[in-house]
């Protein structure tokens, strides 16, 4: 990613692109709504067996029922706690190790090779080993989420720092900025777009790890809700769990996008068209 904009481009007035953007967003909602409508129609017409895949409206009704008696809220809170703890642990480690490897040659030599090797392991395949190491309880789920979140954030932190235009760092040096000030004014803001990308991927990996983790010996969480429902063939609850996972993914992505737009306002000129 280039951090330096082509200097010759004059940016057009900012009023026009807003309208175009809104229209595009509205169009993007069209096809998902259409798919849902088709699904609903097919289920009502009896083309899809209710025990294989219930209609979206049935799933929503089940969701409403479980939300009212508090079941859904409790399980959701448990899942969110796991995701948050895992993300916090894995993310912090990734930021620290990624920064050290990105900024220092010695750190790069020491940290990057083992991380590159570990990356080749699908982290979900570590479940049996994790069970032996940390047991089947809460720590196993959190470790799995932390592992999932670590790699994408590590690589994007590392790449974000390495991709910073050296000429900008030099310019900052000629302005008399010391090492810490260069990190604050040049490295951190320069790596921020990459950090956001890493965070987005890390959150995706965290949800994925959570789904897998919650299906092994759990007494709570959305994954448990789904496994239990399968035992009793409650397809609507299983699909509801999928809806919740999808909703969480969408929501976290949306929040991140808003945060990104606020922090990366300086790229507005480039993103408008």
């Amino acid at each position, binding site marked *: 990613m280039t*951090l*330096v*904009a082509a*200097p*010759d*481009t*004059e*940016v057009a007035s900012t009023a026009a692109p807003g309208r175009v953007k809104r229209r595009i967003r509205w169009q993007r909602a069209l096809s998902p709504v259409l798919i849902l409508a088709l699904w609903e129609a097919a289920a009502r017409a009896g083309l899809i067996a209710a025990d294989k895949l219930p209609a979206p409206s049935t799933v929503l009704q089940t969701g409403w029922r479980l939300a009212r008696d508090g079941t859904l809220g409790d399980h959701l809170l448990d899942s969110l706690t796991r995701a948050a703890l895992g993300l916090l642990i894995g993310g912090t480690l990734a930021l620290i190790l990624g920064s050290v490897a990105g900024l220092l040659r010695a750190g790069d030599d020491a940290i990057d090779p083992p991380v590159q090797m570990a990356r080749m392991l699908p982290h979900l395949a570590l479940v049996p080993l994790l069970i032996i190491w940390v047991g089947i309880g809460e720590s196993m789920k959190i470790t799995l989420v932390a592992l999932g979140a670590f790699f994408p954030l590590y690589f994007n932190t590392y790449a974000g720092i390495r991709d910073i235009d050296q*000429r*900008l760092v*030099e*310019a*900052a*040096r*000629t*302005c*008399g*900025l010391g090492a810490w*000030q260069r990190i604050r*004014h*040049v490295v951190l*803001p*320069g790596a*921020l777009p990459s950090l956001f990308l890493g965070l987005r991927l890390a959150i995706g990996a965290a949800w994925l790890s959570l789904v897998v983790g919650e299906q092994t010996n759990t007494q709570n969480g959305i994954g448990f809700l789904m496994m239990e429902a399968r035992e009793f063939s409650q397809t609507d609850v299983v699909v509801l769990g999928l809806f919740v996972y999808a909703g969480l993914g969408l929501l976290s992505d949306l929040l991140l996008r808003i945060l990104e737009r606020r922090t*990366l*306002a*300086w*790229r*507005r*000129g*480039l993103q408008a068209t």
Partner: protein
Amino acid sequence: MAPRTAGNLVVRARGVRRAFGPTPVLDGVDLDIAGGEVVALLGGSGSGKSTLLRILAGLDAAATGEFAVPAQHAVVFQEHRLLPWKRVIDNVGLGVSDRSRCTDALAEVGLADRARAWPVELSGGQAQRVAFARALAREPSVLLLDEPFGALDALTRLRMQQLFGRLRARHGFAALLVTHDVEEALLLTDRALVLDRGVIAADLPVELDHPRAPDRPGFGALRRRLLDLLGVPAVV
């Protein structure tokens, strides 16, 4: 211009050497710049003029020899090198605690109204003016300029050269101007150095009256001399 004596030198370099692999690029460069003196550094492509400037700017740790450049120096590069994530005024204020100096510098380059703009919103000429403002805000006693007008279109370059003349008259800074443009050197500087085979091969005072223009007497002859020194033959 004051004569160069040991007392009023702002830049002094002796025996500066720098090699890339086995090939020496600078092979014992001696350089003096007096206070308020603007010196052009000319040389063919790959002659090491930018390397010398980077050494003086403190950006090249591998160079040997002795050189002294005041802490109050500032650098303007060929590209503007503004931080894209900082507004214009914050770019100018990078490492400067006194905000009023930054607004003044921005006003001097005629961009006071663009203080809150992002660098991506500027044209090439505007961005380079901001780069000059960033240098000025440091109140430098010497400016190190690495082909600062090289990436601009011909008209913008002329305007920037005039701006440089005005700024110099007002602030009286010394400057080392690395350029490959002989006319630019003759328009803007007091002395022209030619870098060849790793040493300063020629040191030519530019004794032309101000305001200077390519069609004024003496300009053409001096231009021809410099081009000869740079190994560009006259067109027959």
